[in-house]
């Protein structure tokens, strides 16, 4: 029998995006239950007991995050992170498009748990149509008396609003998102203070990913023990894996945490096209380290604890498959271009470092580099890593450093070929990069 999906429920329950169908399947009963029968802290305790961890990338325990909300300062806010912008990630979009009420109910329950009376859904600007659909759903909920004032005869009131971003990856970083919502440039804040004490408009704020929040209604409805029946002990529940790259059947797959890469790639994704063999796996989108796809890696369970053992993070579980037709120097030129474009410019190592990495990786891919550029690239990436205000800078180096370490042959083939063509075909650009690196080494 096919396992029950708990997030992509529209695949098993047709028209669950219609309010009456969602309600017929128990929808909005969990919210009614918390508002009419539970203390706010008790809701947080249930989520804590479920072991739910944030699905946006960091894997932080959700209930614990809620419990940090500062009760001395009011009002509180909830912000749903619907900025989904990591290359390779397209899961939140499917939830919001096809199972929107479950997501909105999760937002509402989170808001009740921290006693927020306003919640915002921050959507990336590209999700314009989804934003308009959510606006319609919210209006429908207000008309049905499920959102609004004095809900279910209680004194609790809640409004949910959508807010569109305008094309900036960095706004997926929670403090950049809060700045952006406040009408400022979307640049990360220096932390602490963290959002539970100083968040939106300077008030205590819970920021959760769309997929995280979408888990909450069923956890309340069926209990934390039920939730723990799937997944692993430390990473309970199901997770949506966005599978892309060189596979026959890319797409979203909802699977228990702890499912192996092999199952995802071959059973769900139908394997690699043609005669190709899987060469590398990026489990966390463009931010990911490159895993060498040997048998050990393929048999690794995809959960927050096991993936680090093969030298990467699970992140948002956007699994990009690289086959043996792809040269890794080309791949990192792509990821670096992305991060250079998306660097917000606030801190120097990221702003300058991604710029230089872009130039060096382009040069390598275009066959204009000698072997010394590999060391230069490694040095620049090492100067970025661990020295930035937010994770974006670090992310920009993951594929670069692991690519150079684990797929050295691809780079050497490129630079050696270039070297034999013209040993002294050096550009002014190259010399400038070298002097920069020397300069920074001397500091």
């Amino acid at each position, binding site marked *: 029998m096919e396992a029950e999906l708990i997030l992509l429920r529209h695949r098993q329950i047709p028209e669950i995006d219609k309010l009456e169908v969602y309600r017929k399947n128990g929808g909005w009963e969990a919210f009614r239950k918390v508002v009419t029968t539970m203390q706010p802290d008790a809701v947080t305790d249930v989520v804590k007991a479920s072991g739910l961890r944030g699905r946006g990338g960091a894997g932080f325990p959700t209930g614990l995050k809620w419990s940090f909300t500062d009760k001395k300062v009011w009002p509180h806010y909830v912000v749903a992170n619907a900025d989904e*912008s990591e290359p390779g990630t397209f899961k939140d979009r499917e939830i919001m498009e096809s199972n929107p009420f479950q997501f909105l109910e999760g937002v509402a329950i989170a808001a009740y748990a921290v006693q927020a009376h306003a919640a915002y859904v921050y959507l990336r600007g590209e999700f314009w149509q989804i934003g308009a659909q959510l606006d319609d759903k919210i209006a429908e909920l207000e008309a049905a008396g499920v959102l609004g004032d004095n809900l279910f005869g209680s004194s609790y009131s809640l409004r949910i609003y959508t807010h569109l971003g305008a094309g900036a990856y960095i706004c997926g970083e929670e403090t950049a998102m809060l700045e952006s919502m406040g009408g400022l440039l979307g640049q990360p804040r220096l932390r602490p203070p963290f959002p539970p004490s100083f968040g939106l408009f300077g008030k205590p704020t819970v920021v959760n990913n769309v997929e995280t929040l979408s888990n909450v209604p069923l956890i309340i409805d069926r209990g934390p023990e039920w939730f723990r029946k799937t997944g692993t002990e430390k990473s309970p529940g199901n997770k949506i894996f966005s599978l892309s790259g060189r596979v026959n059947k890319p797409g979203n797959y909802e699977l228990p945490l702890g499912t192996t890469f092999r199952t995802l790639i071959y059973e769900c994704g139908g394997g690699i096209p043609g005669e190709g063999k899987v060469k590398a796996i990026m489990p966390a989108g463009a931010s990911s380290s490159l895993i060498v796809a040997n048998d050990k890696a393929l048999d690794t369970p995809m959960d927050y604890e096991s993936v680090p053992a093969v030298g990467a993070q699970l992140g948002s579980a956007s699994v990009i498959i690289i086959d043996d037709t792809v040269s890794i120097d080309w791949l990192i030129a792509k990821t670096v271009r992305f991060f250079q474009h998306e660097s917000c410019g606030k801190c120097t190592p990221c702003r300058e470092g991604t710029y230089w990495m872009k130039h060096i990786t382009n040069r390598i891919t275009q066959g204009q580099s000698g072997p010394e550029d590999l060391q230069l690239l490694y040095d620049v990436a090492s100067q970025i890593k661990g020295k930035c205000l937010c994770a974006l800078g670090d992310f920009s180096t993951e594929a670069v450093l692991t690519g150079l370490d684990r797929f050295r042959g691809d780079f050497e083939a490129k630079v050696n070929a270039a070297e034999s063509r013209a040993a002294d075909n050096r550009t002014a650009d190259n010399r400038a990069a070298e002097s920069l690196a020397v300069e920074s080494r001397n500091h």
Partner: protein
Amino acid sequence: MNSLIEKYPQDVQKILGKYPADQKRAAVMPLLYLAQRELGYVTRQALVDIASLLEISSTEVASIVGFYTLYHGEAGGKYRIQVCNDLPCALRGADDFLQKLCENLGIRVGETTADGLVTLEAVTCLAGCDRAPMFQVQTGDGLTYHENQTVESTLALVEQWKSEAEAARAAALAAEPADAPETLAGDMLTVEAGEQEEVLVTAEQGITRQPADKRIHIQELGGQ
């Protein structure tokens, strides 16, 4: 007078109502989308209007326009085709797709076709990785996704826009009073207010060939 409030009184009130009264500044992003609705870009006057509405400086509003990729400070094509060629899409042929589009449209990435209809742009991930090649189309009115695309399907879309534009132009001509000045027939480009003289050139001369610092602004007769 604030032209945004004049044009869209209800929208402005609705947007302001989303945020706490002492946090008006939060409305800057939705107001910029509103300001972009008609022309597909934010005029200098709109910067001033938004600034006065939110009690911030127009420089601060302009910095928001500059920071985000979906706001435009200058006119582009009526339709902006924004192709994702990030890693996952590139693994499914997006680079090749983009290059062939350029060849067929006769423009490079970042340029606008001579008729002012299409601007072609390469953008970062749009969360459509499993359905590449894919792109979004941005107009003043919003964004639409187009996934699992081919060069042929995309060119067919462009042809459709062309015939729609033709039809709109014909309708505008038919509605035009008989004694309208000859020069007003068809699309025109005007140098925006702020420049001293007003220069009229016909659209056939092509937007991309105008110097970028001239801040040209398309005036489409017949409206949207």
